[in-house]
Each structure stands twice: as structure tokens, then as C-alpha cells.
């Protein structure tokens, strides 16, 4: 109980301390940021340990006729662990990346507030709390998106907030429909709508839920805010736009499919058979667009769009293997993608190069960075010793078991395109001629490099012993099937 509260509060308290701290050096600020991220991670791990051990942690109440509740379940704690652990890495990386930047106080304030809100999304025990934190997440991440304060950043911020609020509006309608059908919004028991007979209202609710959460999950055609949001500083792009914010959308859809509707009911709705194909479409189109991009961060953004739909695809198979693949992919993809973004950030900071076409020869200047980048690129294809191999394996197994083998084909094709996406870059980075050698900017890159290499190492470790994360995946499957 107390762990849950502390996990939720640690980020917010840290953020507020930084916001109201009198002028001070960056060292003290970094200490506060690091300790509150670390506290968030530690307490999340403790909560996760308790939940996975089968204990119930629940804080709930009502006000104004609306019940709210915090009630982490296995799915929630998996998300919380991913987010809070990566937050710690991103915090360390930020110390290196943001050093000497303007507006650090604002940056760290909202960076830490966003941690609390993300954990709130993860620990929500009913739809009202989920909606609350989902809305708040939009608001607290907006200042991070517009951190550069350029016109481009402002435009991206506006687009982000309009897309997110519209999505939240759709979700609100869907929640009210759910409420009017059942009068109960709690995730604690079985699926909420399990006893409701299929009807047009349910179809609408599902469509609105998927469209609403789909905005943050960047399902094509609701994805347009994501590539633009890449104007944010790299740790933010890495953490929020590859993990926390977009995962809150993905997590919302997982919740809707398994906690609100339940896999049995959703299978009876005609609409549910279209959903995996929307995901498959997003997977292919996203990665194809990614190969066309020259700006590395935009390429990564479209690649994110594609990869997020792997998780959705797994969720929409409504099969235990598919769900296992989805959860595994949530874990593995996030480690690899953050590595890629961190790598891109180091390259941009150290050499000033942001375009893929300028990358040749960079590898000799930044061998460590490019090694991590290369490992992550291999992971994105689903190569054997890396963690994504296992998630793709289960995703395919789920698709086939569900009787939709063409979906497995989609995954294979996407893997091949993925190979085209990053591998040539990495290869030319090591072997190609340095076109215009840029002097190393004499910056202490260790704070950036260490988290990057560590994450690549973790990805490799999980790939070699997937048993490390299996208990979490297993708990989620047992919870819903």
C-alpha cells in the first residue's frame, strides 16, 4: 500500500521540489532528479514484487458519484516496471544531454511529473482513474514537447495536444457508454462488459475506445502528431514518444480488450476482426515510410509507429500466445528503441549530424554508441540472441494459432524491411568514408554512453535468458485467460 503511494508520489514530489527550488547549480538539481526517479523505480519494483506474488494492493474512493481506484494488476505492473526503469536510464542520459541547455528547471519539473502520471496510468484500477491520468499525461508532457520553443516545436505541441484531447474525448464518450451499460468501471473483477449481450452500443464503445487510445498508440491514420513531436530533446523523444506516452495508448487498448470487453465478448463483435488488419496495415506502412526518411529521428518515429502495432496485433489475436507476444514485445521493444534514440541523440550532440545520409564514418568516431545502435538495429529485425526474437516468435505463434497465418507473414515481411531500415546505416557508419570530419565537441559523453550501452546489454541479456521476464508475462496471461 505505502509502496504504491510512494511510487506514485516520488516523481511528483521531485518535480515540485525542482520547480520551487531557489536558483541553484545543476548538480543539486540532478541529485533530486536522480533520486526521485530512482525512488519511483524502486517502489515500482516493490509494488510489482507484491502484485506478482499474488497480494492485492488497492486504494479506492468515490467523489461526486465517481469512483476512482488504484489497483495494480500484472498488466499494470509490467507497464510500470518498463516505464520507471527506463525513466532512471533517461534521467542519467538527460544529465549528459541537457548539460548547458536552457530551461533545465522546466525540463526536469515536467520530466519528473510525467513519471508520476505514467505510473498513475499503469496503476489505475478503473476507467475513471485511467482517464484522469491519461488526460494529465497529455498536459504534463506538452511543455516537454515544446521545450525548444521554436515555431516548429510550438506547432508540434499544438498538434500533439489537439490530437490527444480529441482522443481523450472519444474515450470519455466510450467510458460513459460503458458506465451506462454496466454501472461499474472497475478492472478488479472479470471483464466489465462480459455479461452484456453484443449490440450496436458495444460496437460504438469499442470503436471509440480504440480510436481514442489509438491516437497515443499512433495507429495510422491517427499517428501524425508523433513524427512532429520529435522536435523535443532526445531523452524526451526516447522516453515519451517511444515508451511512456505511446505505451499509455497501447496499454489503454490492452485494458479495453482484456479488462473492459474481455476476449470472449470482443471475439463476438464483428468489428474485432478488422482490428488486427488495422494493426498489420500500420506495421507495414509505418516501416515503409520509415525507410524513406532521411532525418534519423523521424525515421525512428515512423519505426515506432510500426513497432507499436506489433503489440496491438498481439493483443487483437485474443489468444494467450498472442498476448504473451504483445507483453514480451512491450518489454523488449522499449529497451531497444530507447537505445536507438539514445544513440541518435549522442550522434547529434557529438557530431551535429541528424540525417541518415551524413552518417558514413561516424562509427569510427563514436564506436561505443554505434555498437549499441547496431545491436538495437539487429534486435528490430528480431535476430536470434536478442529479446525481440522471443516476442516475434510468440506473436507469430499467436497469429497462427488464431488461424490468421497471413498476419505471421506480415510480421516476417516487416522484419525484412526493418533490416533495410537501419542495418545499412550502421554498416556505412563503420566502413564508409567520413565526408566532412567534425571535430569532437569535447563533451563528456560518458553520462550518455553508459545508459545506452547498459540498455543494449539488458536487451541482450533478456534475449539470452527470456526466463527473466517470463514471470510477468505469465502473470498477465493467467490474469486474463
Amino acid at each position: 500500500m505505502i509502496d504504491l503511494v510512494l511510487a506514485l508520489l516520488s516523481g511528483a514530489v521531485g518535480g515540485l521540489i525542482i520547480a520551487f527550488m531557489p536558483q541553484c547549480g545543476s548538480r543539486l538539481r540532478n541529485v533530486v532528479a536522480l533520486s526521485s526517479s530512482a525512488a519511483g523505480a524502486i517502489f515500482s519494483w516493490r509494488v510489482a514484487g507484491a502484485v506478482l506474488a499474488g497480494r492485492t494492493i488497492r486504494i479506492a474512493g468515490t467523489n461526486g458519484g465517481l469512483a476512482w481506484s488504484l489497483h495494480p494488476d500484472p498488466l499494470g505492473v509490467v507497464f510500470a516496471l518498463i516505464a520507471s526503469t527506463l525513466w532512471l536510464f533517461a534521467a542519467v542520459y538527460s544529465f549528459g544531454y541537457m548539460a548547458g541547455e536552457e530551461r533545465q528547471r522546466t525540463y526536469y519539473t515536467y520530466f519528473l511529473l510525467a513519471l508520476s502520471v505514467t505510473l498513475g496510468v499503469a496503476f489505475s484500477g478503473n476507467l475513471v482513474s485511467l482517464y484522469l491520468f491519461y488526460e494529465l499525461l497529455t498536459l504534463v508532457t506538452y511543455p516537454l514537447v515544446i521545450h525548444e520553443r521554436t515555431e516548429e516545436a510550438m506547432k508540434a505541441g499544438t498538434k500533439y495536444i489537439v490530437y490527444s484531447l480529441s482522443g481523450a474525448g472519444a474515450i470519455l464518450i466510450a467510458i460513459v457508454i460503458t458506465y451506462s451499460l454496466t454501472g461499474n468501471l472497475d478492472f478488479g473483477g472479470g471483464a466489465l462488459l462480459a455479461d452484456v449481450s453484443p449490440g450496436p452500443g458495444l460496437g460504438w464503445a469499442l470503436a471509440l475506445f480504440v480510436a481514442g487510445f489509438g491516437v497515443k498508440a499512433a495507429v495510422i491514420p491517427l499517428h501524425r502528431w508523433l513524427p512532429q513531436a520529435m522536435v523535443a530533446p532526445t531523452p524526451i523523444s526516447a522516453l515519451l514518444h517511444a515508451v511512456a506516452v505511446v505505451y499509455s495508448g497501447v496499454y489503454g487498448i490492452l485494458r479495453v480488450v482484456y479488462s473492459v470487453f474481455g476476449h470472449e465478448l470482443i471475439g463476438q463483435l464483428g468489428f474485432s476482426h478488422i482490428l488486427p488488419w488495422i494493426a498489420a496495415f500500420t506495421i507495414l506502412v509505418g516501416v515503409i515510410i520509415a525507410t524513406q526518411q532521411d532525418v534519423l529521428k523521424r525515421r525512428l518515429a515512423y519505426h515506432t509507429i510500426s513497432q507499436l502495432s506489433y503489440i496491438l496485433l498481439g493483443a487483437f489475436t485474443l489468444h494467450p500466445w498472442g498476448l504473451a507476444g504483445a507483453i514480451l514485445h512491450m518489454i523488449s521493444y522499449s529497451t531497444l528503441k530507447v537505445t536507438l534514440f539514445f544513440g541518435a541523440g549522442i550522434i547529434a550532440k557529438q557530431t551535429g549530424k541528424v540525417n541518415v545520409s551524413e552518417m558514413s564514418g561516424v562509427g569510427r568516431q563514436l564506436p561505443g554508441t554505434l555498437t549499441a545502435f547496431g545491436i538495437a538495429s539487429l534486435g528490430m529485425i528480431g535476430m536470434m540472441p536478442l529479446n525481440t526474437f522471443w516476442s516475434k516468435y510468440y506473436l507469430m505463434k499467436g497469429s497462427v494459432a488464431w488461424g490468421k497465418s497471413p498476419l505471421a507473414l506480415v510480421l516476417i515481411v516487416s522484419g525484412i524491411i526493418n533490416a533495410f531500415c537501419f542495418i545499412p546505416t550502421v554498416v556505412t557508419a563503420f566502413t564508409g568514408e567520413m565526408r566532412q570530419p567534425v571535430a569532437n565537441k569535447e563533451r563528456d559523453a560518458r553520462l550518455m554512453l553508459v545508459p545506452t550501452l547498459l540498455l543494449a546489454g539488458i536487451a541482450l541479456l533478456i534475449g539470452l535468458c527470456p526466463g527473466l521476464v517470463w514471470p510477468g508475462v505469465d502473470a498477465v496471461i493467467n490474469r486474463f485467460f
Partner: protein
Amino acid sequence: MTATIISNLPVFVVIAPLFVAFVLSTFARRIRLVESLVIAVLALGVLGAGYLASLVLMQNGIPITYSMGGWPAPWGIELVAGSLSAFFLLLVSGVSLPVALFTVANMTHEVGGSVRTTRFYVLYLLLAGALAGMAVTNDLFNVFVLVEVATLSCCGLVSACKHPRAAEAAFNYLILATLGSALILGGIGFLYIITGHLNMGFASMELCRIWQDYPHVVWIAGGFLLVGFGVKSALFPLHVWLPDAHSTAPSPASAILSGLAVKGYMICFIKVLYNVFGATLIQEFALDRILSLLGMVAIIAGSLFAVAQDELKRRLAFSTVAQVGYVFLGLGQVNVCSLTGTLFHIASHAVIKSGLFLAAGAIIAATGKTRISEMAGIGGRMPITMAAFTIGSLGMVGIPLFSGFIGKWHLLSGSLTAGSTLAPLVIVIGSVLAAAYLFPIIRTAYFEQAQATDGQDPGAPQRIALILLAAGVVILGVAPGPFLELASRAAVELLAIK
């Protein structure tokens, strides 16, 4: 003793501000005394309204009735303090006190010397008294009289600025509002002709018996009342007077006009609609569909107009037009949930909008800038003002934990219960548009590079007023308990009348 107080409470809350308003002009030279008298009587009003509300909540739906002059109901004039009255009284007193606090030692630059300021306070108290009267009255003709008192004091408040634009806005407002009053009086006349009663309860009973004999008269009466109150409460497309009037008035006056005065006319309309016509007749004469259609158009049109404004107070004024739409939309879905949402939305908008107008007033007074595009960086220089503005905006957009969300939740769920598919969509689109016209202000204030360096937070009373209203937004959103209870009881009572 207690019994005397209780039985006289409904009339006391109306009479007290009116009485002080008359006495006030004798102290015109001593502005401190005037201000303290105003604050004192409004604070007394808060106590009275709070006590009344707690009584109503404890009595489980039995209203406190007061017969003027001792004459019983069909002959005499009746004041009834039920849940709806207690709800609105609480709102009127709860909002007019902080707004009055904001005016303390702050009016001379907008209004003029102490005599003019005293006149401003006279009008202010007259308006407060009229609004309190609207809450408790149960007599159709009294509704008209109170509406007129409120209208005249509103026009007076608008023209309180020395600027000639204010006089013009006040004149336009006066003409249109009087047109509306004439229509309201006409509608009441038709109801009186066919029912022979002015007491709402008796008129309703009679109307229920005979409406089938005079369907046309009922139609005409309903139409007159709808258009009349529509003009008064700025229902799109009858809102044309509002943007000028509310943007040229002194800021505290704008706050009270947008926040409370418009709501007073709505409460009167709700009373006439639900207490006289009753839910059955509303549906019989398709008034529900007309109302919700008008409401939806108002939400969309008002919000779009608001997005297009660059002048801060005009944007807020158009936002009022949009928010009025929510109330009419809610009135058109005849069920408990929607009515609860409507009433709660009235309350939350009153608190939010008066806070927003006061914050806007503070910014304009401190920097002299009226356009949003000139307000870059103001958030750093006026932290408390902009914090209050931000909280108000979040409430208006309907972010959970702020008051607007609870009203919208009930409206959404009520309109879904009523089987409408368009209404929920419009409600949500309205929220997104509210973000579209409010968030850019916040973004400009906090996240844009500042060129200017002038401006600072206003004085202590003003800051307290802003903090009180912002706290109101949060409290209504986090712990709406008794307030929501009153609203939902009022909704049940309104629908119980057949």
C-alpha cells in the same frame, strides 16, 4: 428564535443586499465604509445561504416556504426555498463575495471617483439581491420583476466605465434585453390568461388540466418565454449583445455578468419550464428537441467564434456563449442525470468564468494589454493570476479533478440515457474547442519569450479573490459532495412535477 430565523431566511437573503444597496449612497464619500458594508452583507449572504442549504439538505426535500405579507399561496406571493433555490443561493453568494473582494480598493481606475464607485456597488448589490430573489421566488410575475431589476443593474454595470464604447454596449444590451423582457412578460401573460394563476405551483396544476384545450396558447407562451429568456441568457443566435457588453464592462462586472447574471435568467427559465410547464408538456410540445438543438448549435458556434478572437475579454465572452449552450443542451434531455449535470455545469461555469474574467482584469490592469498575442511571458510575472487562470481553463476544458468534468460527465451520461448520439459528440467537441481557445492563452503566457517586463500580481484582496475562486474550481472538482447532492435533488424535484 431559531424558528423565526428559519422561516424568515428566504426573504432575508433577498432583502438584505437590496436594503444595503439603498443605504449605501448615503455614505458615498466614505469609500472604505461602503466597501466594508458590501463585503459584510455579502458575507452574511454566504452564511444565510449556507445555513439554508444545510436545512434543505437535512429536511429531505421539504422546502421552506415564506408567504409575503402573511397572505397564503394562491392570493399572496410565495417564496419557496427548495433544493434548487438553496443550490443557486449558495452559488450566488459564493461567487459574488470573492468578486466583491476583488473590487476592494481597485475600482477607481476603471470606474472613477468614490461617488461613481459607490454607484457601482449599489448596482452590484441590486444585482446580487435580484439574483437571490430569482433563486427563491415562486411567482411568475415576480420572475419578471426580478429579471428587470437584474437587467437594469447589469446595464448599469456595463455602462460604469467612462469609455463611450461602454455606453454604446450598454444601450444595445438594454434595447435587446428589454425586448426579451417584453417577450417574457407576454409569455407570462398568456400563461396567466389560460390558467388564472401567477403562483407557479397553482399555474402548473391548472395548466396540466387545461392544456389540451388551448394548445396554441401554450405554444405561443412557450415560444415567447424561450426567445425572451434566450435573449437574456445569450443563447446563440440571440447572443449579439453579449460580447460587446461583457468585454467593455469593468472586469469585476464582466465576472459577475458572465458568471452569475446569465445564470440567474437560466434558473428562472428552468423554473418556468420545469415548474410550470412540467416535463410532460416539454416533451409534448417538442421543446426538448428544440432546446437541445439550439444548445448544440450554440456550443459549436460560440466556441468557433471564441477561437477567432484575439482580445482576451472578448474571447472569454464568446466562451460564455458556448457554455450557455451546454445548459440548454442539458435542459433538452429530460432526465435526472442531465438536469443534475446542467445545474452543476451552471455552478462550475459561474465559478470558473468569474475567475477567468477577474484574472483577465488583473492582467489588463497591470499591463494595459488587452490582446492575447501581447501577453507573452505574463505567467512568470503574474504567477498567482496566471495560476488561477490556468486552473479555470483546465476546469472549463473538463479535465478530471476540476469542476467542469463532473458537469460534463453527468451531461454526457444523461444524453446517452436519453438516446441521443449527436449530443455526446457535441459535448466532447465543445471540450476540445474550449482547449483550442483557452490553452493558447496559457501557452502564450508561460511558454513564449517575453519582450515586456511590466506587470505584477495585484494587491492582497484581489489575490485572495483569485485564490478563492481557483480553490472553488478544484473543490467542486475533487469533493463536490453536498453541492452535487443539492443539484441532483433539485433535478429530481424538477422532474417530479407532472
